[in-house]
């Protein structure tokens, strides 16, 4: 209760600060209307941003269906809170850290705090045919979904206030810098020549590894391994997967940052890889235990979406089929075998799907990329260039180490101030009732 009071006081403080800021804000953003703006690109990117925003509710349902009924609202709530927290953080601070003028190839400067200078005219640096605000809004949605992805790892047991603190800090200390390294003008990872079309490294690896670290730090759910913990509402999960598949077109095609041939290409290979991965997950199950499952089809689709994300603007449709056929069996082994062997409880397999699938996708990009598809990219191993694969491996390794390490530290630090897990009694009662006073 005390903590709650403290937090709310801080919120009030924040509110007042913002207020004062607004009032004193002399000159918002001047609209040098339509200077160099391409209407077609702008409309496309705005719609893509909306599609990516929808992915987070989609994810909430995908995750929510997989937990036990007594915890479904807590999962939905975490996703809603991520939408709230990260959106506001992005406007106040995050966008500037990630995309602001580069400081030492490591981080963006504070020039764009509170979106000052981020206006209706195109930025000089990013997506020069659309309003700067459209680019920043599109990127905001990426930051939101990334943080939301992690929540699957600690579902059904994390304290709400610890969760809030974690998300805010993680976004600021992990997502924003890594986004800068890969996509920011001057970021050091893109300098290495690593390719990441729509966020395999920045989004899926970083959240997947963070999920693994969180699962390890928080420990297993009560009864995990003894009592079966089964999905309470798979239709919700399938609905979520459908919304994810839909929204992902905004994610990947939108990452062309223009409504051009490359966007069409990314769109097509995204769908193709996803389809192949849905099939190959089901095939893997069929071989392994004889029953193709609905959750498997949905999981495979998500694995395919993850794997094609870094590659979407660089590989051919046939390569997309190959990636799709590969990624699901690998992720399947990770969630059904590796997880048991290593003994962590990653509730909804954030690591097994996003960490593993994202890593596979990043490597596959190094193998299958072709400059015939995207002259701004590079040729992969199959086309005789080993350098790209190397760069991809470095980018992957860096993200693993950085995201894993900082997540671990962050949680340990938060643990000094407040317990990370709910009490045993609360966990048994279910987080919906215990934390939120609600029933699904």
């Amino acid at each position, binding site marked *: 209760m005390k903590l709650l009071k403290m937090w709310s006081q801080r919120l009030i403080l924040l509110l007042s600060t913002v207020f004062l800021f607004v009032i004193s804000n002399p000159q918002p953003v001047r609209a040098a209307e339509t200077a160099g703006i391409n209407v077609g690109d702008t409309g496309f990117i705005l719609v893509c941003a909306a599609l990516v925003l929808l992915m987070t509710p989609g994810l909430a349902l995908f995750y929510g269906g997989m937990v036990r009924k007594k915890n479904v609202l807590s999962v939905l709530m975490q996703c809603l809170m991520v939408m709230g927290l990260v959106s506001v953080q992005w406007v106040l601070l995050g966008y500037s850290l990630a995309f602001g003028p580069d400081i030492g190839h490591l981080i963006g400067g504070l020039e764009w705090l509170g979106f000052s200078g981020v206006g209706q005219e195109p930025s000089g640096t990013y997506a020069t045919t659309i309003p700067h605000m459209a680019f920043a809004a599109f990127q905001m949605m990426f930051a939101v979904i990334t943080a939301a992805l992690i929540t699957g790892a600690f579902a059904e047991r994390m304290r709400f206030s610890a969760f809030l603190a974690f998300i805010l800090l993680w976004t600021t200390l992990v997502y924003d810098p890594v986004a800068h390294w890969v996509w920011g003008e001057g970021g050091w990872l893109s300098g290495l020549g690593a390719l990441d079309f729509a966020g395999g490294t920045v989004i899926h690896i970083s959240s997947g590894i963070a999920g693994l670290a969180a699962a390890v730090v928080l420990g297993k759910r009560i009864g995990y391994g003894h009592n*079966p913990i*089964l*999905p309470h509402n798979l239709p919700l999960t399938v609905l979520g997967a459908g919304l994810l598949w839909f929204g992902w077109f905004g994610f990947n095609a939108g990452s062309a940052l223009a409504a051009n041939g490359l966007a069409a290409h990314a769109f097509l290979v995204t769908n193709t890889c996803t389809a192949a991965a849905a099939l190959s997950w089901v095939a893997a*199950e069929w071989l*392994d*235990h004889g*029953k193709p*499952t609905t*959750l*498997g089809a949905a*999981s495979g689709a998500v694995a395919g979406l993850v794997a094609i994300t870094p590659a979407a603007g660089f590989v051919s449709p046939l390569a997309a089929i190959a990636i799709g056929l590969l990624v699901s069996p690998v992720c*399947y082994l990770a*969630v*059904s*075998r590796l997880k*048991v062997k290593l003994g962590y409880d990653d509730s909804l*397999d954030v690591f097994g799907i996003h960490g593993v699938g994202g890593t596979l996708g990043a490597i596959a990009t190094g193998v299958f990329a072709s400059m015939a598809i995207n002259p701004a990219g590079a040729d992969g191993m199959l086309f005789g260039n080993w350098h790209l694969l190397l760069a991809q491996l470095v980018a992957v390794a860096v993200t693993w180490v950085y995201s894993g390490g900082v997540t671990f530290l962050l949680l340990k630090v938060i643990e000094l101030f407040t317990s990370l897990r709910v009490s045993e009694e609360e966990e048994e009662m279910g987080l919906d009732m215990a934390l939120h006073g609600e029933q699904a």
Partner: protein
Amino acid sequence: MKKLEVIIRPNKLEELKAALTDLKVRGMTIYEVMGKGLQREQKQYHRGHEHLVDLYPKVKVELICRDHWVERIIEVILRVCQTGQAGDGKIFIYPLEEIVRISTGERGDDAL
């Protein structure tokens, strides 16, 4: 007065209801339950992890009736619900001391 608790396969409910109505048994109360018995276990899968399922959805029909109706009702149940396979269900018969009909306050046989 007796109480019969009849555990049956869910898909037999409609037929049993009709057969009982033919017998002029109108009142009954239905429960959705899960039953474990001699029925073979099934396997359920969750991302490659196997779980045994030994609880099957069953329907329990609860019937309160006069003593001399019991055998007639058992007969109907056997006729309708018997497939001869494990899982057909059971009839449990219990004594009952009193009935009150809430709408009228009547008691005993009149309350049925």
